[in-house]
Every structure is written in structure tokens, then in C-alpha cells.
């Protein structure tokens, strides 16, 4: 008993040690919220989850005093953090806090500006230089030009008018404009974003700013400018880097805009770039394409094991997302015989599983028909006698035995 107890102590100690290590290597991140014309109570925990999910960040949420409260009390020590995420649109901070933040960024601190953060602080000069473009708060020509794409040309438009608008919420296509930036490297040229506000007519100093992606504000949904409006921006300020995403309007629990894999992944990549200037994260398989919106139910990337297990419970009314994952995986393993065999074994395990539905078996048999090997043959032969699976089993065997 004593020995086991000792072992437990040692293991617990090791575990604590590893956890501590993990936290220490992760970039300390501060998410600032507390006032917003948006549901910050919904969005800020989602932002934290999305960032911490990568293992790169260890974030904490700090809330400012309520509207009209004493801002002197809000005095975070920015120097403790590698990244500051602004989910805030409210009262001005104290001069002392403003100055500390400007110093932090000037000295190389990373910043993520999220959605309505670009509505905030219309008269704080440095903040507007960090955001590049902003909207509302009486912003107009005095604050800088409109910047957008029109007919694939970058336009800096100094005409008079208010800054900031959006039409009805809808799904929209986001187009990558700069493909060799660390944030956008490896992303598709265009991808469909989950239902969101399409921020338009932003204007600001637009200094040291690269527009990484735009979306066309058509007029079909109302309020469209018929311009390709900036969606993702990379800005530098002093030694600091700022990633500005206009997307992610939050509903309770995040809503489709925050569940969108495109929003999540660009936020994760943008945050890493703002912190280090590089992006080490691979583009996950489920990054959306122009073919359709991809929503992550719990903000996490599906693992191969999860996808294949999920296929086992497929029936004809369910999503085929897990199958698409499997097909992508097969493609990505092209030429890797060992990897394919490992995958095939996982597929056969589900194929022969007691809980696996008939419809799931049909899907698996179709894939095995071309990617499988001799390994699959006995399991498939055993299904030939099943009246419901006879056609698919014959299909698979016939193809597997093509010479």
C-alpha cells in the first residue's frame, strides 16, 4: 500500500510539473472586456477557449469597470503579457492605462482586435493607428480614408462620409487577398463564413496595414456597398504587431460566426503572428472552402479517431462531415502505405463493430473499395451474407480485386 501511495505522489508531482511547464511555455494572454454594445459575456470565454485550444496561449479574462464606473481602477500590467486581446467597446480608459498600452505595443507586444473593438476609442489617436480602420463613434473623413477593394484593385477613398455600416447578417464569402502572409499562408483563396455581420465602410489612418482578406458586401442582403470590404488586417505599430478581425459577432454561446472554423482558425493564426511574427500552426483539414460553411460544435478540430467513431453512428439523416474528414485524410496519406494501412485498420474496426449502423457500413465499404488492401477482404466477405449490405460488399470486393 505504501509503495502504491508513493507512486501516486510521484505521478501527481510529475503531472503537476508537466502542467506547470505547459503553462509556462504558453504565451500569457490578456483578454480585455467588460463593456461592449455586443454580448461580451458570451464572446470573451469563447475567445479564451479558442486561443487556449492551440496550446500556444494561456489566457485570462479581465473586465473593466461597468459603464460610467471609475476607470482609474482599471490598470492592468500589460508588461506581464505577450498578447492582449481587445473585446471591448466602451468608456475611455485612464490616460495612464492608455499610455501603458501604447508603450506595451511600441515595445513589441502583440494585439488582437476583435469585431467591435474597432468601434472603440474613436478619439484615441494611437489606438486608431493600431486598428488601421474603424467604424461608428462619429468616425468620418477626419479620421482617415475608406480602404477597400473594388474590381480587384485596392482603393484608398478619401471621400466624405460616416465610417462603419453593416447589412443584415448572412453567410458570406471571404476572399484571401495576400496569400504569402504568415497568417494566410495555406488558406484557400476563398471560403464561406458562418452567418455574421459584414462590416463595411470602415475608415481610419490605415498606416502600416495589410488587408489580408476581404468580403464582397453585395446589396442582396441590404446595406451592401458593392465593395470588397476588409475582413482581416495585419498592422504594425512600433515594434508591435496587431491582428484585426472584423468578424465574429457573438450570440449566446458564440453563434455561427464564432463557431465558424474559418473565424476560429484565422483568429488562432492571427494571434500567433501578433505574438511572434510567425505562424507555426498547420491549416487544419476542416478549414472551410467556397463549397460551404464549416461550423465546429465545440470550437475544436475533429480528431481522426473521433471522425471514424462518429461515422459508426451515421444514418441517412445525419451529416456527412465525418466521411469528408475521412476522405480528406485518405487523400493526405497518398503514397504512405503504412499510414493508409493504419487508417484501413481503424475503418475495418468500425466496419465490424457491433454498434455500427448499416448506413455507416455502406459508407465505409465504398471507401474501402478503392483505398483498401487484402487486410479488408475477410471483413468484407463476412458482410456478403447480410441482405442489407450485399450490394455494397460485392461492390467493394469486386473493386478491391480489380487487376
Amino acid at each position: 500500500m505504501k509503495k502504491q501511495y508513493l507512486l501516486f505522489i510521484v505521478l501527481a508531482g510529475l503531472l503537476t510539473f508537466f502542467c506547470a511547464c505547459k503553462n509556462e511555455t504558453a504565451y500569457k494572454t490578456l483578454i480585455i472586456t467588460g463593456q461592449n454594445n455586443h454580448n461580451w459575456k458570451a464572446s470573451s470565454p469563447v475567445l479564451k477557449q479558442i486561443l487556449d485550444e492551440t496550446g500556444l496561449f494561456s489566457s485570462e479574462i479581465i473586465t473593466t469597470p461597468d459603464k460610467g464606473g471609475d476607470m482609474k481602477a482599471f490598470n492592468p500590467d500589460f508588461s506581464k503579457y505577450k498578447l492582449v486581446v481587445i473585446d471591448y467597446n466602451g468608456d475611455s480608459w485612464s490616460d495612464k492605462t492608455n499610455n501603458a498600452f501604447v508603450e506595451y505595443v511600441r515595445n513589441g507586444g502583440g494585439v488582437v482586435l476583435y469585431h467591435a473593438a474597432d468601434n472603440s476609442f474613436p478619439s484615441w489617436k494611437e489606438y486608431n493607428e493600431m486598428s488601421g480602420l474603424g467604424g461608428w463613434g462619429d468616425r468620418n473623413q477626419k479620421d482617415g480614408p475608406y480602404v477597400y477593394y473594388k474590381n480587384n484593385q485596392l482603393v484608398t477613398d478619401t471621400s466624405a462620409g460616416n465610417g462603419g455600416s453593416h447589412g443584415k447578417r448572412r453567410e458570406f464569402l471571404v476572399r484571401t487577398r495576400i496569400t504569402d502572409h504568415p497568417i494566410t499562408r495555406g488558406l484557400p483563396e476563398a471560403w464561406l463564413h458562418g452567418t455574421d455581420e459584414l462590416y463595411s465602410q470602415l475608415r481610419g489612418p490605415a498606416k502600416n496595414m495589410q488587408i489580408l482578406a476581404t468580403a464582397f458586401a453585395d446589396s442582396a442582403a441590404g446595406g451592401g456597398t458593392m465593395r470588397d470590404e476588409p475582413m482581416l488586417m495585419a498592422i504594425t505599430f512600433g515594434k508591435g504587431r496587431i491582428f484585426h478581425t472584423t468578424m465574429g459577432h457573438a450570440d449566446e454561446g458564440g453563434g455561427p460566426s464564432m463557431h465558424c472554423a474559418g473565424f476560429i482558425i484565422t483568429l488562432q493564426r492571427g494571434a500567433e503572428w501578433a505574438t511572434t511574427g510567425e505562424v507555426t500552426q498547420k491549416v487544419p483539414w476542416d478549414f472551410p472552402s467556397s463549397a460551404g460553411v464549416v461550423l465546429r460544435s465545440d470550437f475544436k478540430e475533429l480528431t481522426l479517431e473521433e471522425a471514424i467513431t462518429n461515422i459508426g453512428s451515421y444514418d441517412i439523416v445525419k451529416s456527412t462531415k465525418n466521411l469528408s474528414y475521412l476522405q480528406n485524410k485518405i487523400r493526405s496519406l497518398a503514397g504512405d502505405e503504412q499510414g493508409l494501412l493504419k487508417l484501413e485498420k481503424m475503418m475495418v474496426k468500425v466496419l465490424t463493430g457491433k454498434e455500427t449502423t448499416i448506413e455507416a457500413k455502406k459508407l465505409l465499404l465504398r471507401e474501402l473499395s478503392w483505398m483498401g488492401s487484402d487486410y479488408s477482404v475477410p471483413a468484407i466477405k463476412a458482410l456478403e451474407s447480410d441482405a442489407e449490405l450485399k450490394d455494397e460488399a460485392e461492390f467493394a470486393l469486386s473493386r478491391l480485386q480489380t487487376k
Partner: protein
Amino acid sequence: MAKKSSRRDFVKRSAALVAGAFVLPQILPSSAFGMGRRIAPSDRIVMGSIGTGSQGMSNLKDFLKLKDAVQFVAVCDVDKLHLAVAKETVDLANKNSDCRTYDDYREFLEKEKLDAVSIALPDHWHGIIYSAAANKKLNVYGEKPICRTIKDGQTIVSSVKKNNIIWQTGSWQRSLTNFHRGAELAINGRAGKVKYIEVGLPDGNKGIGTPPVKPVPPELNWEMWLGPALKVPYRGVSHWDWRWILDYSGGQLTDWAGHHIDIANWGAGLEHTGPVEISGAGVYPVEGIFNVPVEYDFLCKYANGIEMRVANASRLPLGMGTTWHGDLGWVHVDRGDIISASDPKILNEVIGENETHLYKSENHWQNFVDCVRSGKPAIAPVEVAYRAISVALLGEIAMTTGQTIKWDPEKEEIIGNPRATRLLSRPYRQPWILPTV
């Protein structure tokens, strides 16, 4: 007209001779009288139609415009509503109510005595029905793409050749002036020696998610619609939208290969060969029953050094259509009578007497009818159609496997890739089999 009545007399006489032995249908094909496959110019070609949905009806109407040349006597479809509309159209043209209807092509082919048949079906049915019609020695006007798999295509080509029938593919762009002219400029080197070709086909279709399973409407024989394809529940998706589902089609890519890839081959002398290496990538939907690639982009290398890029239009500088790039410039063609060139002077070039003159047709359906009469090959013969769709099918295999595919265009085999080789054919659901040649 005098000749026409003489044929009727002939029919009457023949009928009288054999009366009592069996009852003849009212209209007999000319080929039934031991005249061989040649049909006198005065005789109308007796035709039937298998598949009378949107494209089938479109072809039927184009044939009926040639009213002195053809007479339709029978139609076949697995949808009773399609069948009723087709019969009404034929009866109106014939000013009678005699058009016979079938819901099973086997019965249609068994009972009808025809000169030619117009066939427009979902691609997964092409292998079986094109071959069966050829084996019945019927001349065929068949819709593109002529096959869903390379193996289906090989069987169709062999059946057509063995039975020595006239085949016309529905690649009707060949019978339009701008495409003919563009191909002729390209093949005669007016943009220089063709080195690189771009083929832009339509961007993909938006998905519809996963519609619920529904009762099959009473007019539709769903089992027969599926035929050799694996059985799936009916979700209200059959006619037209089959082209967004991989079981029946490869999407816009395969749907349009018989147009712009066919034209590309025509102007580059690639009609009777295929690429030796194919590589590229597609963008596939993550959700829903529509699973064809919505974006696709692949490069084919030919043994003679020519390269052909096939992609959805918005990925290409000139968008839709075919562009032949030579060492002196380029020539581009597309629908809407579009023909353009790097230098407008190219477009005024005259093709000399001793240069290559491509087959000229003014009307795709008339061309078929003329060839059925003359016994000469039509403008879009079967092996040429097979080479056009092969490019798309090999591109599809490269995108499905994520691999560079090596293809032997002589032996028509994939080299050194057993998995990709399996994708050259698709097993049929019992009891369906590909007819033997």
C-alpha cells in the same frame, strides 16, 4: 415527293408479301429492307428516344425540326411525366397519336425496329445503354459525357466500332462557326505551335445539405433510375441534379468535358490520344449529398510536350472556354460566338488549300442524319468523345487519390498505381452488367 410515295408503295408491297406471317409496324426503318445501313435521301430516318428529360427533349425537338429527314415513332423514360410530354411532342409532329411509349429500354430495344436512337440519360447509365443500342445495330446520337468511368467508355467505343454504326456525340459546339474557326486557327499554327492549353469549365454548384428521405413520386421508377448504381434512399433529387452527385456524374467538370475539352483536343490534334501525366486538386464539399468538387484544377502533360490545364472558370485568366497558347500568341473560344486572339490579325487569317481543314458541320443533328444516310463518320465520333471525357475522368482520379497519375494513352492503363486503377471502373449493382462486346 414522288420518291417518297414510291417508298410507301414499297412498304405496302413488302407488307403484302409477308402479310399473314406477321404484322408489321406502320413505319419501318429503311434498314429493315436489306438496303444495308445506307438510307436513300428521300427516306425519312425512323428514330426513337431513350431518356426524355430536359436534354432528351431538347435533342428530340432539334431532330423534329428536321421534319423531312426524321420520323420519331417511340420514346422511353423511367418517369411517366417525361414520357407523356415526349409522346405528346412526337404525336403533334406526326399529326397522329401513334408514338409508342416504354418505361424499360430493354423492351424498347427489343420491340422497336429503328434506324437510329437519340439517348440522353444520367451518366451512370451510359455504359450499359449505349453499348446495348450499338449491339442492336442502331445508329446513336448520344449525350456527352459518353461515360462515367474509363471502363464504360472503352466498352462503348468497342461496341460502336464492332457494330459499325454511326455515332454522334452531343458535343454540338463542334457544329458552331466560332469553335470550328478557333480550332482550325490553332491546329494550323496561327498562334504558333500549340504548347499549352487552358480549359475553363463552370464553377461548382452550391450544395443543398442533406434533404430528408421522401416517398418516391408515383411517376418515377426509382429502382430503374438508379439501375447499376448503388441503391440509396430517394431524397427528391433525381432529374438534372444527379450531376452534383458522384454516383452519377463528376459535376461540372465531367458535364462540360465533352464541350470545351473536346474543342481543345480538336484544335491541338489530341483527339486520338490522352495525357501521360495528370496532377491537381479539387475542393470538395464538407457537408451534404452533393459531393462533386466545387472547384477543380489539374494539369495534364502529353507525350508531345503539350500541357493542358483544366479548371473551374474563376481560377483562369480568361474564364470559361478553351484557349490555345502557341509560341506566337493565343486563340480563345467560348459560347456566345466568342472568338478572340492575342493579336486581332490572327482572326483574319485565311487557311490555305493545303493546310488542315477541320470537319465542317452547320447543324449537329442534321450532320448525324446526313451521316446515317451516307455511312460517313459524324463530326463528333465515339472515340473522340471518349478521349475528351478521359481527360476529366483521369483528373477526377488524380483529385480523389491526391496523387500524380501516370497514364498510358496507347494501352489505356494507369501505370504503377493499383488504387487509382480501381477507380477506372465501377462495379455494377446486380443484376446489371456491362454488355460484352
